[in-house]
């Protein structure tokens, strides 16, 4: 990147390092950090939406719907999340291809599962074999986001369900007395008030979500773990201008520091948010603020 980088063998230590850390592959490494942040930014709202639907289903008055919501919550929490990640990446892919196969190729007569093979017609393949590379990568990323959303949606559903239960019963009864219908009570009374009760759980969930992002590696995405392993491995002078020994330990140390920083920043921000939200609420936090001000 720098002008003096043309012949790395002749450089001193500091300059060598500055050239080494700005090679093209290292730029991909830094981009993968953005990938992680992007995943977090996309997944958090999607998972929250899944959680909201799950919590609504779990407190539904129709028994089958409420059972479905509760089963979703219970099963995802009872099994290691990594198993779900490995499962959903294949299962979602096969489900999409299966549906497309049924729609696009109705006159196909062979079975889809033949022994160890999963065979759908060419037109049903996702993404199509003729698609450019970026489509394949985007498809993989969308599958990863969906998987994360399904797993963390269940956790969010549990937290939101608890938050909804925690809203004082008197508030809802008052709304009933005013003649609001169930939909109005839910949207105008329950939902605005539940957030302050759900926030401790949700902020905890955010921490868990941050710490789950390295699992992207297992879903076949070229994320920070992938690049740390690639770049850290021993490089000989034959294949690289920057030969070095096994530095994977240092790369993973950098990742460790990155995650610790993320955690620390989130802690500070969430603390502020909690202070903001508790303002004027009938909770211990809100009460403490009132006393301090008085």
């Amino acid at each position, binding site marked *: 990147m720098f002008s003096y980088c043309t012949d790395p063998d002749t450089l001193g230590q500091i300059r060598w390092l500055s050239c080494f850390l700005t090679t093209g592959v290292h730029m991909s490494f830094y981009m993968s950090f953005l990938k992680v942040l992007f995943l977090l930014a996309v997944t958090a709202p999607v998972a929250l939406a899944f959680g909201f639907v799950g919590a609504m289903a779990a407190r539904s008055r129709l028994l089958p719907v409420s059972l479905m919501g509760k089963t979703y919550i219970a*099963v995802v929490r009872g*099994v290691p999340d990594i198993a779900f990640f490995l499962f959903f990446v294949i299962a979602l892919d096969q489900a999409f291809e299966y549906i497309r196969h049924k729609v696009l190729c109705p006159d196909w007569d062979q079975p889809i599962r033949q022994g*160890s093979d*999963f065979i759908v017609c060419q037109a049903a393949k996702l993404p199509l074999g003729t698609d450019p590379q970026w489509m394949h990568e985007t498809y993989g990323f969308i599958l990863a986001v969906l998987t994360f959303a399904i797993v963390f949606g269940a956790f969010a559903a549990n937290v939101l369900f608890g938050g909804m239960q925690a809203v004082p019963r008197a508030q809802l009864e008052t709304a009933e007395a005013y003649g609001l219908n169930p939909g109005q009570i839910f949207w105008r009374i329950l939902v605005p008030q539940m957030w302050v009760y759900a926030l401790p759980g949700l902020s905890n969930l955010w921490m868990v979500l941050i710490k789950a*992002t*390295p699992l992207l590696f297992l879903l076949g995405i070229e994320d920070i773990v992938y690049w740390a392993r690639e770049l850290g491995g021993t490089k000989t002078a034959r294949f690289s201008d920057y030969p070095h020994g096994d530095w994977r330990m240092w790369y*993973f*140390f950098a990742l460790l520091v990155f995650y*610790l920083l993320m955690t620390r920043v989130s802690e500070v921000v969430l603390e502020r948010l909690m202070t903001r939200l508790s303002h004027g609420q009938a909770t211990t936090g809100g009460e403490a603020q009132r006393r301090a001000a008085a």
Partner: protein
Amino acid sequence: MSCLQTIQDYGLRSLGFGERLLPRSDFTLCEHFTLIGSGMIWNVYFGVVALAGGFFLATALAVAKASNAWWLRKPAEWFIFIFRGSPLFIQFFFAYFLFLSLKSVHPIFDPFTAAWLGALIVLFFNTAAYSGEIFYGALRSIPKGDVEAADAYGMAGWPRFRRIIWPTMLRLAWPAYTNEAIFLFHATALVFFSGFPAWQQRGDALYYASYFADKTFNPFVPYPILAFYFILLTLVITAGFGFVNRRLNRHLPRDQRRKMRFRPNLIR
């Protein structure tokens, strides 16, 4: 081949006994159940040993973090922050490569690069940090009256800690600690996907489940079996910890006993 034969061949495969070659084609349901179940031995081993060791370190960490002396408090705070603030997955990778480079310094670090010791150490530190934070929270919410009563009886130092503070701390922390235990057992599934090699294909339950899923390209059989085993394990843990919980609370009137609730979302 009968199912009994399969169990004889593969029941202890994860420990290296029995048939050497894994099944390669025409997988039966029995083979799925046997091999994944055999892998569970590793999950139980990691979970039980890390939990048993981590319990003592966690108590020490909690006491250190609650201490007034800064030279005790600061290291405990940092230890807990580092292990709770970073992903276990990255910790495994880092530890593995750390042990790998230490290995070239001295052969004494040889066993540390194997999962049975290296991963165990990471899990041990990790669970100690999480439970340490739980115990610390419990330490801070011990009723003031309990400690004052102990003072009035002339108890101080070690006897006061052992007979008053520690049991109360455990009683308060137990429901959260149960959840931590369940999470720890779930976390053991990460071991063989994070650098630590499965020597001679002796892996844990998830290792075999993903082996089957890769070979058959059908995730709908092995993963539900894995889920079945883990839910079974979760039930066993809940029952065992519930038994301890009843014992810890046995002196209290019935309506004051703290109910155990399965709430994993509020810990990690």
